[in-house]
C-alpha cells in the first residue's frame, strides 16, 4: 500500500526534477535548444579538423551503406559518449548541489541521479534526431533501424544510471572522487573507438614478449561495444551482432543493479555526510 503511494509520489518528484533540469539547461541562453546542439557540433568540428586534416585519418567506409564521412562517423560514437559523461558528471554535481534538500527533507535520493540521467536522455534523443536527419539527407536510410537505436539508448541509459549512482554516492564520502573520475574518463575516451575505428586496434600485439589478443580484449570495454553498436545502426546501416547486444544488456543490467545496491547501502548516511 505504502509502496504504491511511494511510487506515485516518486514519479511526481522525478517529473518535477527532470523538467527543472531541462528548463535550467535550455532556458538559460537566448539560443535555447539550439545551444545544446552546438556543443556536440563544435566538438565534432574540432576532432574532424585535427584527425581528418592534420592526421589525415581516412573516413571508414560504411558497409553496406557505402557512406564515407569522418564527421558523421565521429558523431555516431561521440553522441553516446557525451551522454554517458554528461550523466555521470551531472549526477556528481547534483547530489552535492542539492545538499540542503538532502539534509532537510526526505525523498528517495536516487531520484536526483535518475532525473539527471533522464534530462540527458532528452538531450541525447534530440541530438540523435538531428543526426538522423543529416544522415537521411546524405542518403543513409536509417529509419528501419530506429527501434534498434532506441533500444540501445535504453540499455545505455541503464548503464549510465548504474555508474552515476555508484560514483555520485562515493563522491559524497570522498570529495576528490570527481577528480579521479575526470582522469579515468579521459583515459576511457581514448580507449574507446570514438575518434577512430576499431579496425585501427591491432588484432594481436606483443606485450612484454607475450602475444596478446589485443582487439578481443579491447572489445570487452562496454563503451567500445556501445559505440560500435550505435555506429552499426547509424553509419553502416546494419544490425549489431546478437552477441554484442546480449553483452551490452548484461553489462548494463549488472551495472544498474550494482549501482542501485551501492547507492542504497550508503544513501542513509548522505544527510550527515554532506
Amino acid at each position, binding site marked *: 500500500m505504502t509502496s504504491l*503511494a511511494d511510487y*506515485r*509520489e*516518486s514519479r*511526481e*518528484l522525478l*517529473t*518535477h*526534477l527532470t523538467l*527543472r533540469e531541462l528548463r535550467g539547461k535550455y532556458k538559460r541562453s537566448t539560443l535555447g535548444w539550439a545551444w545544446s546542439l552546438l556543443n556536440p557540433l563544435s566538438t565534432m568540428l574540432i576532432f574532424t579538423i585535427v584527425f581528418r586534416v592534420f592526421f589525415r585519418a581516412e573516413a571508414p567506409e560504411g558497409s553496406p551503406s557505402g557512406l564515407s564521412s569522418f564527421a558523421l562517423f565521429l558523431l555516431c560514437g561521440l553522441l553516446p559518449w557525451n551522454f554517458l559523461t554528461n550523466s555521470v558528471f551531472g549526477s556528481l554535481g547534483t547530489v552535492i548541489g*542539492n545538499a*540542503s*534538500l*538532502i*539534509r*532537510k*527533507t*526526505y*525523498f528517495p535520493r536516487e531520484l536526483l541521479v535518475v532525473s539527471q540521467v533522464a534530462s540527458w536522455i532528452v538531450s541525447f534523443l534530440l541530438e540523435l534526431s538531428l543526426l538522423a536527419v543529416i544522415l537521411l539527407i546524405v542518403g543513409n536510410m536509417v529509419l528501419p533501424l530506429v527501434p534498434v537505436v532506441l533500444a540501445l539508448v535504453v540499455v545505455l541509459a541503464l548503464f549510465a544510471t548504474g555508474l552515476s549512482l555508484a560514483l555520485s554516492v*562515493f563522491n559524497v*564520502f*570522498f*570529495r*576528490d*572522487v570527481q577528480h*579521479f573520475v575526470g582522469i579515468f574518463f579521459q583515459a576511457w575516451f581514448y580507449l574507446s573507438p570514438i575518434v577512430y575505428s576499431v579496425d585501427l586496434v591491432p588484432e594481436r600485439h606483443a606485450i612484454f614478449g607475450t602475444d596478446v589478443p589485443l582487439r578481443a580484449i579491447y572489445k570487452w570495454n562496454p563503451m567500445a561495444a556501445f559505440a560500435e553498436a550505435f555506429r552499426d545502426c547509424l553509419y553502416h546501416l546494419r544490425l549489431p551482432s546478437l552477441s554484442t547486444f546480449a553483452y551490452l544488456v548484461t553489462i548494463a543490467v549488472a551495472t544498474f543493479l550494482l549501482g542501485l545496491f551501492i547507492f542504497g547501502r550508503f544513501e*542513509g*548516511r548522505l*544527510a*550527515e555526510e554532506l
Partner: protein
Amino acid sequence: MSEPSIVVEGVSKRFRLYHERNQSLKVALLRGRRAVVDEFWALRDVSFEVPQGSSFGLIGENGSGKSTLLKCMARILRPETGSISVVGKVSALLELGAGFHPELSGRENVFLNGAILGLPQKELQRKFDEIVAFAGLEQFIDQPVKNYSSGMYVRLGFSVAINVDPDVLLVDEVLAVGDEVFQRKCNEKFADLKSRGKTIVLVSHAMTSVHNICDRVAWLDHGQVKMVDAARKVVDEYVGAVQVDRTVDGEDGGERWGSGEARVETVELLDANGSSVSRIRTGEAATIRLHYRFHEPVDKPVFAVTIQTLDGTHVSGPTTRDADQVPDRLLGAGYVDLTFDRMMLLPGTFDINVSIQDYSCLHPYDFRHKVLRFDVEPGEPHESFGLVALGGRWARTEDTGTEETT
C-alpha cells in the same frame, strides 16, 4: 485516537566525527581506510509512541538529540539500531531553511517542496495562492530565497509544510523565529490539524508553547529519554531541573551586574500562607520577597521586579518608584515585599529579574537576571490562552423584539 501514529522503538543514532570535514580518497587509499576519529551516540535506546491526533513535544537541553530524533522520524537520518514507524504522509519543517534550494525563487521552491511531499502539480497550483498568502510573501515570491530573511524562510517553509495536508507534521525549533502574528497563525493551524486527527511533533524551547500546544512530552537528556508523560508533568520536572542548574550558573555566570553598594541577597516566592514555594496558582495571593543588604548608605534606592516568560517576553515590571515608595536613604539589611492579592498570571513558567537602582533608574547597584523561576498552575479564573487573565466578564443578551422568520 487509540492507534499510535508514530512508534519509536529502541532507536540509537551514532555520528562519526572525522578529522577533516571533507575526506579525500587519496589519503584514504594511502592509509588503507577512512580516518574514523570518534564515535558519538546522539541517541541511545529511545522508545515511545505518539497517539494519532495528538500533539507531542520534545524538550531537552541543547545537544540532547531532539533535532536528531526528529530527522530520524522524517527518514532523513537512518538510525543505527531500532525502528521508527510512521503512519501516513510526513511533512517536516526542520530548523531554518526548510528544504529550500537557495538559488531558486520562492515560487520554484514551493513547487519543488510540494513535489518532494508528493503533491501533484495541479493540486499545488490550486493551493499556491493560499500557501503564499499564509506566509505573507506575495511581493517576494519570485525572488531567490537566498535573499529572504530568516523569518521569511520559516514562514514559507511552515506554510508549505502545513498546506500539503500531512498526516504527521514534524516541527523543529523554528516558530520562535516568526513574529507574533505568525506564531499565532501557527498555533491556530496546529489546533486545526489536531482537530482533524493529524499528529504533530514539536521541538521547542518555549515551555509556554509546549505547555499550551502539546498533550504529551518526552524529555531527552544526553540522547536518552528521561521522561515521557503528560505535558504539564514533564514541563514541571524539566523546569525544576533546569532551574537548579541555572542558579548555580547564575552565581558565577554573567547574569548579575551592578556597582555593588547594595545587593539583593536572595529572592523568595511566598504563597498565601507565607511559605516559600516555586509553584503558585492563578488567582491566589502571592508575594515576591527581596532580601537586601546595603553595604554603604544609598540615597533614594529603587527596587524593581520584572516577570518574564521563558521566551523573554516581559509580562510585568513594577518598581517602588512607580508606586511612590522610595525611602530617602537605606543602610543595612532587610527585605522588601511585592504582594499580589490575586496573582493573575495564567498557567506557565516564568522568570523573575530583580534589581536595586538609583532614583533615575539608570544606574544599577545590583541587577540579577532570572534569579528565580516559578510555575503557575491552573486556578481561578481559568482561561486556556494567553499570559495573564485580565478579569474580563462575559454577558449575553438576547434581542427581544425580533422574531426569526423562515
